[in-house]
Structure formats: structure tokens, C-alpha cells
């Protein structure tokens, strides 16, 4: 997808008549010298009065001046992004890409002589939904009576469930990955009509033995149909074989002609190619001459015919009407012949123009590609909406469970506290209870922190990517600054 769009831009540059220095295959690989050269050529093409140099000199002040002038010209053309001289001296992939695309668009607009369509006219821009953290302010209260009739075995069951938590988490993660990766749906299989035909034939064959002896016409009809099908198949095979045989014989004839010319005389092959080209030119001229002669003869004869018709006259009214109709028809025929000739010439011109067309993919392939990507984007939108809704519901459910948990803990805590007052030996139970509850809370907090850290990592990486894409190198800038300072000091002396 990305490579396809980059190829379009490079192809457009070449077709525009811009000579690309070096062997660069994409805009991202351009050096400052290459970028300045291409932009200067494009500006010279866009504005014939401009006269930017294609070469970047070694002197740093001259480089600065030339790049500043080019940047100023690009800004005047309407470039809305940030534009300065250092965009040329220290190019980044994204900036170079946008800059070259902007200039090529301007050039194509001028050459085409019409306004460029906006991106919205080609395909509607899909909506981008941003995910927002949902905080639920409402407290969900559930009045539910819970029975306390569990036993020691259930405690052990809970303990057993804890050991399986990691497996469940892993399985849920894998399910999430599968869901996110599986964006496209597989196409459904359709029934094969050949199989149906075969089943019908097999049914017919199986029921053949069971037919009654008095149903002889059905057998005859079945045999007739079978023979007719066989007849049709053979006819079709004969036709296809005939076309193949014609192509083979034609190829054989050409090869025999080539063999005769090359093997019999044993002359150098280059002269044969030249002779053939000359013969082709002669034949083409002969055909054109024949057509011209025919046009001349046709005009002469038709004119003579009309003159002869004018000499005739009729007396009867009905015959006179027919005579006028005849003359009108002949005149129409003459004008129609001229029209046919004009259209034939137009057809030849269009055919030649079609042959000169560049070998590019048709419009439908580009439109189809954009539609496919747009469709995938909409699927992602649907997926995001679904997971957002599920996350919201899960948040609400979590809040309600948390409320129930707090109530349960309060009840048990009160119970244990009351017993501790009676019997200090139960204090260990109280400590264990408090510790278990505290650890559960810590686990929840740590899971949330892990998720927050993960999101922060993604954000930082995104910001880092945007900075890195600018491609500014401190070492290069410092070296340029040192060089210009030395030059200034030498000028002062």
C-alpha cells in the first residue's frame, strides 16, 4: 500500500520530465543535493520565468541563500506546512515526501489547465473515533440476599480457582489477539452446479434398472438426450480445435518464412531486419495510396452520376416525386461517404493515440484499491465501537461487583472483630483476613497501573516517532555552524 503510493509519485516525476540524479528509487532516499535539484527543476517548470540552479554549490553561505530562495518560492505557491531552508539541507522522509508531492501537484494542475479535485471527491473520509476513558459516576445498588451456607470444600475450590487464573488470563489475551488480527471475513463457499448435475445423472442411472418395461418412450428420450449432449460436446471440441489448428498453422508459416530467409541465403541478419522494415513502410504507403485513389475515383464517379441524373426529367407527378427522392438519396449518400471517411481518419488517430498511451493501470484498479482500504477502515471503526461498548459495560459490572465485595468484607470484618473482643486467640484470623483483602486490592491496583504504563509507553513511542521523522541531526548542524563561523572570522580579518 505505502510502496504503491510512492511508486506513483516517482513515476509522475519521471513523466513530468524531471531528471532524478543518482539511482534513487523513492523520495525517502533523497539526499539534500537530489532534493534541491528536483525542487529547482519543478519550480522552473511551474514558473518559466524562474531560473533556479539545478546544482547545489559547496559553499555554505551560497547553499543557505539558494535554499532560502527556493523555500520562499515554495511558500509563495501556497505550501501550508512549515517551510524553511533547513528542510532542504536536512531533509526528513515525511517533509520531502509532502514537498515533492505538493510541487508535482502544482505542475500537473498548470499542465492540465484545470482545478485539482479534493480528496473528498474521490472517496469520503472515514470518521476517526478516539477512545476516551469512561468514568461511571452512578453507583449501582443491588438488593440481593445472599445465603451463607458454604463449606470448607468451597474454600478449597476458590483456592484451586486461583491457580487457574493465569491460564484464563492467557486464554483471554490470545482471544483478544485473534479478534484484533482477524479483521476480514472469509468468503462463503458456493454450491458447485457440476456436482448437482452429477448427482442427477447418478440418480437417473440408479433408477434406470427399476423402470417398467412399458416406459420405453422414456428410455428412448433419455438416449436421445445423451446422444445430443455428446454431439454438442464434439461440436464444441471441433470448433476449439479448428481455431487452435489455424493459429498453429499460421505460426508454422511464419517460422518457415523466417527459416527460409535466415538459412538459405546465409547473409547477416541485420540486413534482413532492415529490408523487412523497408518492406513494411512500402506496404503501408501502398495501402494509403490505394485509399486515396479510391477516394478520387469515387468522387469522380459520384459527381458524374449526379450530373447524369440532372439531365433526366419526368412528366408524371408521382414519378417526379420519386425522382426527387432519388436525387436526395444520392446526395445523402455522397455526404455520408465523406462523413465515413472523416470518421475513419479519426478512428486511426485515436488508435495511434491509444498506442502512445503510457502503460499504466486503469482507473478502476486505483478506485478499487481505495475502496478496499476504506472498507477495512470502516470495519476497524465497527470493531472499535464494539470493544468500546463492551469495555463500558465491563466497567459498570466491575463497579457493581466491587460494591458487593465491600459489603461482604464489611460483614465478615464485623463478625471477626466481634469474636476478637471475646477471644483474643482469633486475632490471627483477623490478621489473615486483613492481609488477604489488602493483597487483593494491591493486585487490582497493579493491574490498572500496568495497563496505564502500557498506554503511556505507546504515547511516548508515538511522540518519539514524530520527532525522529523530522530527521534533524545535531552533529551536522553543529558542523555547519562551526564552518560558517570560521569563514566569518576569516572574512573579518
Amino acid at each position: 500500500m505505502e510502496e504503491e503510493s510512492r511508486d506513483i509519485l516517482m513515476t509522475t516525476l519521471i513523466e513530468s520530465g524531471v531528471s532524478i540524479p543518482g539511482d534513487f528509487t523513492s523520495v525517502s532516499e533523497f539526499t539534500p543535493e537530489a532534493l534541491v535539484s528536483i525542487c529547482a527543476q519543478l519550480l522552473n517548470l511551474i514558473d518559466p520565468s524562474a531560473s533556479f540552479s539545478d546544482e547545489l554549490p559547496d559553499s555554505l553561505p551560497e547553499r543557505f541563500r539558494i535554499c532560502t530562495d527556493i523555500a520562499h518560492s515554495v511558500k509563495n505557491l501556497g505550501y501550508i506546512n512549515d517551510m524553511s531552508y533547513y528542510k532542504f539541507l536536512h531533509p526528513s522522509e515525511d517533509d520531502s515526501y509532502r514537498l515533492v508531492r505538493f510541487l508535482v501537484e502544482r505542475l500537473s494542475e498548470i499542465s492540465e489547465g484545470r482545478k485539482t479535485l479534493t480528496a473528498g471527491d474521490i472517496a469520503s473520509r472515514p470518521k476517526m473515533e478516539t477512545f476516551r476513558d469512561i468514568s461511571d459516576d452512578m453507583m449501582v445498588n443491588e438488593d440481593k440476599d445472599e445465603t451463607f451456607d458454604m463449606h470448607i470444600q468451597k474454600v478449597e475450590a476458590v483456592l484451586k480457582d486461583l491457580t487457574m487464573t493465569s491460564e484464563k488470563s492467557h486464554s483471554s489475551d490470545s482471544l483478544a489477539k485473534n479478534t484484533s488480527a482477524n479483521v476480514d471475513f472469509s468468503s462463503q463457499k458456493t454450491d458447485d452446479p457440476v456436482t448437482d448435475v452429477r448427482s442427477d445423472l447418478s440418480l437417473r442411472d440408479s433408477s434406470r434398472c427399476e423402470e417398467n418395461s412399458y416406459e420405453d418412450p422414456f428410455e428412448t428420450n433419455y438416449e436421445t438426450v445423451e446422444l445430443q449432449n455428446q454431439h454438442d460436446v464434439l461440436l464444441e471440441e471441433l470448433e476449439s480445435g479448428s481455431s487452435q489448428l489455424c493459429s498453429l498453422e499460421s505460426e508454422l508459416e511464419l517460422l518457415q518464412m523466417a527459416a527460409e530467409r535466415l538459412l538459405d541465403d546465409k547473409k547477416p541478419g541485420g540486413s534482413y531486419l532492415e529490408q523487412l522494415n523497408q518492406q513494411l513502410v512500402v506496404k503501408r504507403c501502398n495501402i494509403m495510396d490505394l485509399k486515396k485513389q479510391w477516394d478520387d475515383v469515387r468522387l469522380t464517379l459520384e459527381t458524374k452520376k449526379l450530373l447524369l441524373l440532372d439531365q433526366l426529367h419526368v412528366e408524371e407527378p408521382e414519378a417526379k416525386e420519386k425522382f426527387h427522392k432519388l436525387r436526395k438519396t444520392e446526395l445523402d449518400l455522397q455526404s455520408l461517404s465523406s462523413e465515413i471517411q472523416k470518421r475513419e481518419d479519426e478512428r486511426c488517430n485515436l488508435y495511434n493515440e491509444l498506442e502512445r498511451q503510457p502503460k499504466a493501470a486503469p482507473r478502476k484498479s486505483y478506485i478499487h484499491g481505495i475502496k478496499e482500504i476504506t472498507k477495512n477502515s470502516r470495519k476497524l471503526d465497527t470493531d472499535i465501537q464494539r470493544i468500546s461498548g463492551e469495555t463500558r459495560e465491563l466497567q459498570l459490572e466491575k463497579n457493581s461487583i466491587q460494591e458487593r465485595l465491600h459489603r461482604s468484607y464489611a460483614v465478615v470484618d464485623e463478625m471477626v472483630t466481634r469474636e476478637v473482643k471475646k477471644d483474643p486467640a482469633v486475632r490471627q484470623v483477623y490478621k489473615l483476613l486483613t492481609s488477604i483483602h489488602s493483597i487483593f486490592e494491591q493486585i487490582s491496583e497493579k493491574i490498572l497501573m500496568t495497563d496505564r504504563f502500557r498506554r503511556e509507553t505507546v504515547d511516548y513511542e508515538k511522540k518519539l516517532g514524530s520527532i525522529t521523522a523530522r530527521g534533524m541531526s545535531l552533529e551536522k548542524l553543529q558542523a555547519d555552524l562551526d564552518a560558517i563561523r570560521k569563514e566569518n572570522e576569516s572574512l573579518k580579518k
Partner: protein
Amino acid sequence: MEKDDNSDKVCLSVKEKYTSEQPEEMVTNLKASVRELSVKVKEQNQRKCDAKDKLQQLRERISKEVVDVSVQELIPLLRSLKEFVKEESEVRSRCNVKRSALEDAVHDLEERAGKGLDGEIQEEDLDGLLVVSLDNLTSAKKELGATLREIVSLKRQIDDVPCQSELLQYERRFSELNVCIQEKLQQTRKLYATYNALLEIKDLMLKETSLLNSIGSQFQDVIGTPAGRVKLIDSMEGVMKGIQQKIGKIQLGLQEEQRLRDASKEKYIAAAAEQRKCYTVLRAYQEECTKNERLRSHISAMNEHL
């Protein structure tokens, strides 16, 4: 095979009793036609094999004896020459036919003009001429229609190739969609991660709720006896060990994510600082270039003065 033969015999015996002429003749005719077609197909296949063999022999001969010329260059030229010869003969014959028709018509009119004293033409002859002329007009109209359809088809083919500005629009759209898709994928991943985290927390809360409920339900029964008390404490200690292992795993994951976050943050801060330094150096560089131009202009002015 035996079964098929038996069925054929049964059919034949039945046909002897209840045959009718018309279906039988149809079947016979079809069988004869199928047999004839099979023979023709067989002959055609034989001719195809012969042609292929000859082609192979010729190619081998050419590859052995001819070296300096490529046959692939020669055959297209020969094919074009053959097509031109064919076209020339077709054009010549078509022109001759039309010219003969026109000459006949002119000759006929000349005879009529010379025959009649006053140049009068009969109505019957006029009808014939009118019919011929109308037929010619109809043929010419059909020919023009075919030519126009071909012209429209060629124009459509030419227009199907997009122009440069259109290509650039497609390229821009591809680029925009690519960025959009990448952003949505990242957003989807974040949402799934958050969902999984909430799901895990929910499961833990449910487990804790179940544990507390079980403790509460049996506390009054077991707290009264020393044996029950010891058993309860042992069970709770087992649960304690389990959740301590769990929190250990979670802590490791948290530390890993924190380390990644800190590393990304440090990289970002360093890149931002470097970017600020770059802008500072750029401003200094611009000032030095301006100073350089001023010094050069001053030197050139001094030289002119001298």
C-alpha cells in the same frame, strides 16, 4: 460391463416389441452424426500433432544454425508484413467492387440518357434506381454506425488511463488511508488491553467475594472449637500463599511495563532536548549566514571604492 450388456439386451428386446419409427430414426441419425464428428475430431488432433512436430523441428534447426539474429525479432516483422499484404488485397478488392458498382450505375444512366429523345425515364426504372440507392444509403449508415461505435470505444479506453493530477490524488488518498489505518490499529490494541485488564480485575473481585462469603458462612460454626479454628487458619494461610504468588507475577509484569515506559520516556526527553538544541543551532546558523552576507557586501563595497 456384463451388467451394461444385459441392460442393452433388455432394451433391445423391449424395442422389438414397442418400437416406433420416429424416435428410432432420430437415435440412428444422432449416432451417425456423433460417429462422424468423432472421426473429424480425431483427424483434427492428428493435424495439430503434425503441426506441432514441424514447429519443433524448425525451432531446433534455427537454434542450431542461426546465431547472429534473434528469431523473436524477425517473426513479429514477418507477421506485420503478412497482415499488411492481406490488408492491401482486401482494400484493393473492396475498392474494385465498389468502383464496378458505381461504373455500372453511371453506364446505365448514360444509356438511359442517350436512349430517350427527351431524356425521359420510365417509372419502373425509377423505382429500381430508388431501391438500389436506398439500399446503398442503408449500408453506408450501418458502416458509419460501426465506425462511430469503434471511435467511442477507443475514446473510452483512452480516458480509462488516469492523468497525472488524478494519479496524484490517488497517491495522496492512499497515503492518508495508510496513516488512518495505522492509528486505528493502535487504538484497537489499546482498547483490547484495557478490556483484558478490567476483565482480570473483575475475576479477582468475584473470587474474593466468594472467599469472603464462604468465610462468613462457616465462621460461627468453626470458631467455637479449637480444631475448627486451626483448620480455618490453615485454609486462610493457603489462600494467602496463592494470592501472594499471584501478586508476585503481577508485580513482575508491572515492573517490566514500567521499565519500558521509563525507557521510552527517557528516549523522548532526550530527543526533545536534542530538538531544542537543533533549533538553537539553526538560529545561530541563520544569524551567522546573515552576518556572512553583510561582511561580503561590505568587502565588495570596499573593493569598489578602491
